[in-house]
C-alpha cells in the first residue's frame, strides 16, 4: 500500500450500476418457478454482489497485502464449516 489504493471514479459508478442491476435480477429470478434452483440463483447473485463490494468498494482487489484476502478466505471457510458440519447431522438424520 505504497500509494492510496482507490479505483478511479468510473469503476465505482460501474460497480454501483452492476449492483443495482443485480438487485433487479435477483427479484426477477425469484418470480420464476425454477424449483431447487431458485435458492441457488439467489445465493449466486448475492455472493457476486458481496464479492463486488468487497473487491472494489472495500479495496480488497488492490490491497497489496495478501493478508487481508487471507482473512476473508479464512472467515468464509469457517463459516462454511459451521454450516456444512451442522448439515452433516441434520441432512442425514433420516437416513437410518
Amino acid at each position: 500500500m505504497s500509494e492510496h489504493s482507490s479505483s478511479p471514479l468510473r469503476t465505482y459508478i460501474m460497480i454501483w450500476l452492476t449492483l443495482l442491476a443485480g438487485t433487479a435480477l435477483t427479484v426477477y429470478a425469484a418470480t420464476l418457478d425454477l424449483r431447487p434452483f431458485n435458492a441457488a440463483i439467489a445465493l449466486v447473485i448475492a455472493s457476486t454482489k458481496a464479492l463486488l463490494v468487497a473487491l472494489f468498494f472495500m479495496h480488497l482487489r488492490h490491497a497489496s497485502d495478501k493478508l487481508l484476502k487471507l482473512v476473508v478466505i479464512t472467515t468464509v471457510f469457517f463459516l462454511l464449516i459451521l454450516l456444512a458440519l451442522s448439515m452433516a447431522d441434520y441432512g442425514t438424520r433420516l437416513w437410518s
Partner: protein
Amino acid sequence: MATENPQPERVNYLNKDYSLASWLLTTDHKRIALLYLLSITFFFFIGGFFALLIRLELLTPAGDLVQADTYNKLFTMHGQVMVFFFLIPSIPAVLGNFLVPLMVGAKDLAFPRINLLSWYLYIIGGAMMLHCILTGSVDTGWTFYTPFSTAFSNTKVIEAGLAIFVAGFSSILTGLNFIVTIHRMRAPGMTWSRLPLFIWAHYATSIIQILGTPVIAITLVLVVAERALHLGIFDPKLGGDPLLFQHLFWFYSHPAVYIMILPSMGVVTEIIACFSRKRIFGYHFVALSSIAIAVFGFLVWAHHMFVAGISVYAALVFSILSYAVAVPSAVKVFNWTATLYKGSIHYDAPMLYAFGFLGLFTMGGLTGLFLACLGVDVHVHDTYFVIAHFHYIMVGGAVMGYLGGMHFWWPKISGKLYPEGWARLAALIVFIGFNLTFFPQFILGYLGMPRRYYQYPPEFQVLNVLSTAGATILGVGYLLPLIYFLWSMRYGKPASGNPWNAAGLEWKTASPPPTFNFDEEPVVTWEAYNFDELDAPHKQEVPVAG
C-alpha cells in the same frame, strides 16, 4: 521498596505513577495485564470456593450439606466462573497481554485503548456475573442446554447469559489485538521463524477467539430472546430443535478448550527450552501444530453429542475428525520430550510445573481418545470420566501452565524473585493434590456415576472421599503461590533483567520493564532459543537495557 538498591531506582511501568487513575485509565499493556491478573485471581478463588463446596457435599452419598437446587447452582457457577472468567482470560489476558508486545519487540499492543476496553468489558461481564450469583444465581449447568434453560429453569438465565455475552467481547478484542500486533508490530529482524513459540500459540488462540466467540455470543442472544419471548427456536413444543442449541454452543465451546490449553502449551514450550538450555526440538512442527489444533479444533464439536440424538453418520464424521485433532497435540508432547534430549536440565520451580503439565496433559489427552471413541463414549459420556478428563486438560494442563508461566515471568512482571523453595513445594503439592482429586473420578466415571449428581448410590462413596481429600490438598497448593507472590512483592530480592539467563526479547529489557518496554528499539539478529550463544563460555554481551 528495594531500599538496599544503592542506585536511584529506575523508572519502570510500575513506579512511574501511583495514582488510581494511572491504573484504571492506563493503556500500557503491562498494567492492563496486572489489572487482569487481579481480577482473574479473584474469580479463580470464587470458582474454587464453589468447587470446595461441591466436593464437601459429595463426601457422603446423601444430600446433606446443601439443598439440591443450591448444589445445582454451585456446579453451574463453578463452571461458568472458571471457564468464562478464569480459564479463557487466564494466560492470554495476563501473560499474553504482558508478553506479546515484549516478545515481538513492540512498544505496546497495536490497539492499547481497545485493550483497556477489553478489560472493562471483562469487568462489566464479571460484575453482572457476580450480581447474578448474589441475587439468585443460575442452575442450568454451564452448558445452558435448551429447553431446560429457555423454558424450565426459574433462575437468572438471562442475566448470566448476558454476562457471558459481554465477557465474550472482551475475549474477541484481546484476540484481535494479538493478531494485529503479531502481524504488524514485530521489531526489525523478528521474522516469523524467530518468534518464540509462545507467540505462535497465542496466534492460534487468537484465531479461535475471533472466529469462535461470536458464535456463542449469538447463541446466547438466541437463548435470551427465546427465554424472554418464547420464539420457539429451541423449543420442541413450538417446532424448534433443542439440538440446534447444542450444535451452536459446542461450535464455540469445544474450540474454547483450545483457547485454554494452547497458551498453556506456549508457556510450557518456553519453560522447557529455557530450563533444558536448548532450542526447542522441531520448532516449525511445534509452531504449525498450534495452528493445526486451532483449525481442526473447529471440526470436532459434535463429539459432545454422540448420544444426544444426532445421526449415526454425523457421529462417525465427528469421531474421525476428533482423532485428527489429537495428532498435533501428540506431536507437541513428543517434541517437548525430545527437547530434553542432550539438554542441561535445571529443576527450578517453573520447570517442575512444566513437568507436571507434561504428565497431566498426556493423561488428559489420552483419555480424550476414549471419549472420541464412539463405542466407549456411549458408556462414559456425561459421567465422572468426562469430568476427570477435562479437568486433566483444563486444570492439569491449563492451570499448571499458567502457574508455571507466572513463576517463570514473575521476576519480569514484579522485578522481584519469589522464594524458590516454597515454589517447588507448591508445585509438588498441586501435582499430588490434583491427581488425588481427579484420578478417582476416572474410575467413578467408568463405574457409571453420572455428572451433576448431588446424591449418589453408596457404592461410589470411597472414591468420592478420596477425591474430596485431594481437593483440599489442591486448595492448599493454590493458596501457597498467592501468599508467596504477595510476600515477594514487598520482601523478595530484586530480580535482574534476565534471572534465568533465558532467550527472548522480553529478557533483554529491565525487570520490571520501562513503560515503552525497551529503551532502544530492538533489532533482532539472532534465532529463537539461541541458548548456545547465551551459554557460550565467552558469551557476547547482549545489550541489556540499563
